[in-house]
């Protein structure tokens, strides 16, 4: 039975990672930027699981598990920070958050 080349999974992962980078660089809304980071982490997870399949071992999936935990922790803290910023400035646009300059 012919399957899907493993490389396709990795290329898909690379595409999603690149999309995440693009989102982070081009978007101006804090929450969307943060979501782009989540997209990147998801792409990394796909790579881990694909490699885990490649080696027929479970350790890649374990790494994915830890990445998920970390992503959840980051989400909690990140959104709390975004809330705090919004509270003092009433904006989510990243270029309007620029009080720190010379």
């Amino acid at each position, binding site marked *: 039975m012919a399957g899907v080349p493993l490389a396709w999974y*990795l290329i898909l992962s690379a595409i999603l*990672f690149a999309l*995440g980078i693009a989102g*982070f660089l081009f978007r101006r809304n*804090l929450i969307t*930027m*943060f979501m782009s*980071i989540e997209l*990147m*982490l998801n*792409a*990394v997870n796909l*790579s*881990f699981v*694909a*490699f885990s399949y*490649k*080696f027929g*071992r479970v*350790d*890649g999936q*374990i*790494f994915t598990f*830890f*990445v998920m935990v*970390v992503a959840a*922790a*980051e989400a909690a*803290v*990140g959104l709390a*920070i*975004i809330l*705090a*910023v919004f*509270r*003092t*400035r009433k904006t989510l646009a990243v270029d309007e*958050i620029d*009080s*720190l300059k*010379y």
Partner: protein
Amino acid sequence: MPADFIPSTQDLLRLLPEAVLVAAGTIGLVLEPLLRDSRKRVTGVFSLAGLIVALWAVVVSRAYPGTAFRNMIVVDGFATFFRTLVIAVGILTVILSLHYIQRERPESGEFYPLLVFSVAGQCLMAVGNELIVIFIGLEISSIASYILAGYLRDDPRSNESGLKYFLLGSFATAFFLYGVAWIYGATGTTNLREIGDIIAKPEIRPPLVIVGTSAALMLVGLAFKVAAAPFQIWAADVYQGAPAPVTAFLAAGPKAAAFAVMVRILMVAFDPIGAAWEPLLWIVALATMTIGNFAALVQDNIKRLLAYSSIAHAGYVLVAVTAHSDAGSAAVMFYLAAYAFMNVGAFAVVTHVARAGERRLSLSDFAGLARREPAVAGLFTIFLLSLIGIPLTGGFFGKFYIFKAALESRLYLLTILGLLNSAVAAYYYLRVLVAMYFHEPAAGTVEAMPVTPGVSFVLWFSAGATLLLGIFPTLVLQFADQGASLALVR
């Protein structure tokens, strides 16, 4: 359950400092809600005790060198050195913040447990021998640092700092992870030593370009964390906006731990392909020094000035990493130790001079400081001279060992450019000195204020350590030398 998975007593002893720190942080957390608002400082004192016990634990676990938890962590001289360093930075930061946090956000005592957890994460980074552990340690340290940077949540500067640190830090983490995924895919392991072994054997080595790409991705992530060019953009804003004691901590603790990880990864896992990453680091080191120093020239805000200076110092350290030798690693360790003290000292001065709400941060606020508060000004002079690299200070020997290691590795051009950079750097430090000693204070400056005991202790201690390192460098250098060679044992 197979018995060999149950951690042995030795395993636990090797992890003792981290365990102590986590326990101290947790107990601090439980303690915090039991305290009245005016007594929240008690968690600080408790955390201080925890950090000191952790320092003792480092000494204990030093007696049990080796790997633990199925090669997940390794206790060697290198790890012990960095553990000691980050815990020491933690202690100084706690002492420095005792009065500050009481003044700026008295109702909340979670600051100190967070700091302790962050230090625990950095210790894990120092001992991590496996990318999973390093990654989790890095995240513990980073996430706690994001929170600390934004700790004064009603202050727009502080939460802006937290936000920028968080966004760019997470972005960097994603790169680091992608690199880890690739190296796992290429070698089938995440253990640094095993990666090194596989890469060293050409017959089973995966394509060099794959290994190189993964190394590059991981380096991008770490470069963000140490604020190396071209990923230094966040540092100035973050350091300027964060509460001054936190800035002192960020520039010393997390940065040292990130360098520890960088050195360990490069020297253990990617040692065989040194030829591939050395040129890359060469450029990064040069760019970091130059950008840091030249940007610092035009700063008027003292925190921003020190932030750029911190970037420049990361550049010097990168020169030593580029040397790719035992001497280079030793120089990294020595320099980070010296830098930690002078940096914490300098920020202690900033904490004192800035006053409540951190309003007095421009260079003109330092004008005439020597007349108003001669002791503070004198100690600040020591730190600034050390940052320049004047003999008899720790900074001098730091730079000396770095450039010596660079010369031994035949990085002549980089050494020359580095020395030129140091000369440029002297200019902006001297600007501060001139302001302190020769400028008249601007109209309406406030009268001198007594230095709080905490700040005073940090000032005198850091100054003492800076001078000690400048006069008897071998004390620490021996320690560093042993650590550096251990990191390379195959």
